[in-house]
């Protein structure tokens, strides 16, 4: 059977850019209503996407003054979407750092059952002192401990799912999705990940990353095709190339500047005070990613940009545009389809976790124009062939483990 392209939509509240919520014609607080999520999910189902994806973290973003953030808990949102859709997969992010594994295994297994086998769990570790303080800690656990716990936590949850005898979903158990780009994260991905949500801007690097994940899976006794690699892809779609570029420019203009500076400083754990927008960023400000707290994936992406392109602070902020460091494609539906096709056909991706620039309008454009173009090229399904997320992703139900279950180390 020929390879199939997979597409998820990441309903990242108002959109991936820092200024998305200010985009003309957009209801700025729509992402604080449940209808925002259910209606995008319905649209995604009409477009026959594999799944909707919800990012999450158990804390309030300190930057809330200037940009919308995640504000609804994913399992309750996805359960509601399950009630209002029939086929679309439902992927939710839930922290391994700050959940009790017994409770989470039960709740996610139940969500999979209630949704008719459509759920996928995006396992993350939660960085940052802000979240830590909501769970009795004063600071985040160190990176290696977070990942050690995540691996053991995931194995424990998967083992609990595999042991269920009643209330088992049609897909057997939820799909395990994993995103970390760090070395610890890649090990976890190779061992238990079934969908890998990566962040790659460079096609060569993406190809190497996918090959490494597939080799890693084989090293753990799995088949390479048991892992589906979906890089994040931010999209800015226009009827013409000029229209798309204008849209991208506008998104830059409406990005709250203070937000962009604060966010970059916070994510890199450095101080940008006194640095003006037209000054280059001194590379010595940055430390090695393995020593930095927070998200290593984002850190690495930014560090590479700073070292190779030597941008000014303003230039870097514009380049990131308040997004998570994922690759941004700007263009007509044909140009975006060209890009997707190139990455897919040359082994850099099995598909994409699509992060529209503005929600819902950017996703409407993607679903109405890019998806049909991908279909014309024979790359994307015209209808669902099955009912479960595993069906959509072409994933079977692998054996769970055997894992050596040890007592979990609390992420202190």
């Amino acid at each position: 059977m020929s390879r199939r392209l997979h597409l998820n939509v990441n309903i990242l509240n108002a959109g991936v850019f820092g200024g998305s919520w200010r985009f003309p014609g957009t209801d700025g607080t729509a992402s604080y209503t449940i209808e925002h999520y259910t209606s995008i999910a319905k649209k995604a189902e009409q477009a026959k996407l594999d799944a909707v994806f919800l990012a999450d973290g158990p804390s309030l973003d300190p930057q809330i003054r200037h940009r919308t953030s995640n504000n609804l808990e994913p399992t309750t949102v996805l359960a509601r979407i399950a009630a209002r859709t029939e086929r679309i997969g439902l992927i939710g992010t839930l922290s391994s750092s700050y959940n009790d594994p017994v409770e989470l295994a039960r709740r996610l297994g139940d969500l999979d059952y209630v949704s008719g086998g459509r759920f996928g769990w995006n396992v993350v570790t939660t960085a940052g002192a802000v979240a830590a303080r909501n769970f009795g800690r004063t600071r985040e656990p160190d990176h290696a401990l977070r990942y050690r716990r995540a691996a053991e936590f995931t194995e424990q949850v998967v083992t609990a799912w595999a042991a269920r005898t009643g209330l088992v979903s049609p897909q057997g158990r939820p799909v395990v999705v994993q995103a970390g780009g760090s070395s610890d994260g890649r090990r976890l991905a190779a061992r238990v990940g079934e969908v890998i949500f990566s962040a790659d801007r460079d096609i060569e690097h993406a190809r190497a990353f996918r090959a490494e994940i597939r080799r890693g899976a084989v090293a753990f006794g799995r088949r390479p095709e048991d892992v589906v690699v979906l890089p994040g892809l931010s999209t800015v779609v226009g009827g013409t190339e000029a229209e798309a570029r204008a849209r991208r420019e506008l998104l830059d203009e409406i990005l709250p500047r203070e937000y962009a500076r604060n966010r970059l400083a916070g994510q890199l754990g450095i101080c940008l005070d006194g640095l003006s927008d037209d000054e280059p960023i001194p590379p010595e400000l940055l430390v090695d990613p393995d020593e930095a707290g927070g998200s290593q994936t984002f850190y690495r992406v930014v560090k590479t940009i700073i070292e190779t392109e030597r941008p000014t602070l303003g230039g870097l902020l514009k380049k990131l545009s308040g997004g998570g460091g994922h690759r941004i494609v700007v263009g007509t539906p044909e140009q975006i389809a060209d890009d997707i096709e190139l990455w897919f056909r040359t082994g850099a991706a099995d598909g994409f976790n699509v992060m529209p620039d503005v929600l819902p309008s950017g996703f409407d454009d993607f679903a109405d124009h890019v998806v049909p173009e991908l279909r014309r090229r024979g790359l994307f399904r015209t209808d669902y062939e099955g009912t479960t997320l595993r069906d959509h992703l072409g994933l079977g139900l692998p054996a769970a483990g055997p894992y050596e279950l040890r007592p979990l180390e609390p992420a202190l």
Partner: protein
Amino acid sequence: MSHVIQLALAVGEAAARPSAGPARGPVPVPLAGAVAVAAAAREAGITAIRLLDGVAAGHVLDPTVVGAYLAGLHDGLGYIAEVPTTHNPPYNAARRVLSLDRATGGLAGVALRAGGGDEVSRAAAPDPRAADPAARWSEYAHVLTRLWESFPRAALIGDQEAGVVVDDSLVRPIDHEGAFYRVAGPLDGPSSAQGRPVVVADLGDLDVLDVTAVAWSADVVVVDRERAAGADAALTEALRRAGRSREEVALLGRVEIARDDLDPGDPATGAVLADDLRDWAGEHRLDGFELVPTGGADAVVAAVRALTPRLRDTAGSPASARPGTLRAALGLPEPAAVAA
């Protein structure tokens, strides 16, 4: 006044082999049956469905998941998810319940069950020796209510021109530090249309909760037959000591209804039972009932249809005239802000 009617429902799967002895409490109804029950409950004018967790007679699906799912199919009535303190860090429970509440437009609540701690909080517990489940319940409920107010709805501005999403000066951490939990907050999302989700306390819960433990935070208190006598007076006094009034809390009497209690061919059985229950409520100054039909989905639907119109005391008033939020449906005032 009209009676509040809460329906207790377990959703999941009945045990293949019932455990030895008569299993008390309801038998889980399958998910499809629960969808039919929710439709019937809405039509009959049930105030809220309390989704039970952990019943003796089978395996139950997570009530927050089931509540969100059912509310997505049948809106217009309340959904109260049972959540135990056991295995649930309070920040996570607060988020799930508030998310459900916001998704339903202020029609959700939590029946917080007494129990133990969770793996995440235990590792950072301020007082590792603290163990009393009633004290844990009180602290946990207090944390929930404070978190639910930490991000007031009024703070969500969405001023696109000025580039301000949230007036963050109105959003405050709770900085809670008690014996069991240390929780900074604030919560990630704005507060509910009903002020905050409803907190249900069950005085039959593990036999550990009493009126004193629940007086600070409960909006609804459920008592069973054996405990109904004197409950109103005890609750009134406990609320007074907590600086609250009896009008701020709905006191519900729990009634198990076996399949045999209602004969579908004889409407008189429903009328007799309803009269008996209304007398009981009048005698003990109960604000309403929690119905616990024990006989499977069909029996639950039959009990809902037979009893609800006779218990509500709202003959003539159309079911569509229901209040907008669960608090309003329970006859409760907007909640006062929780003191730190």
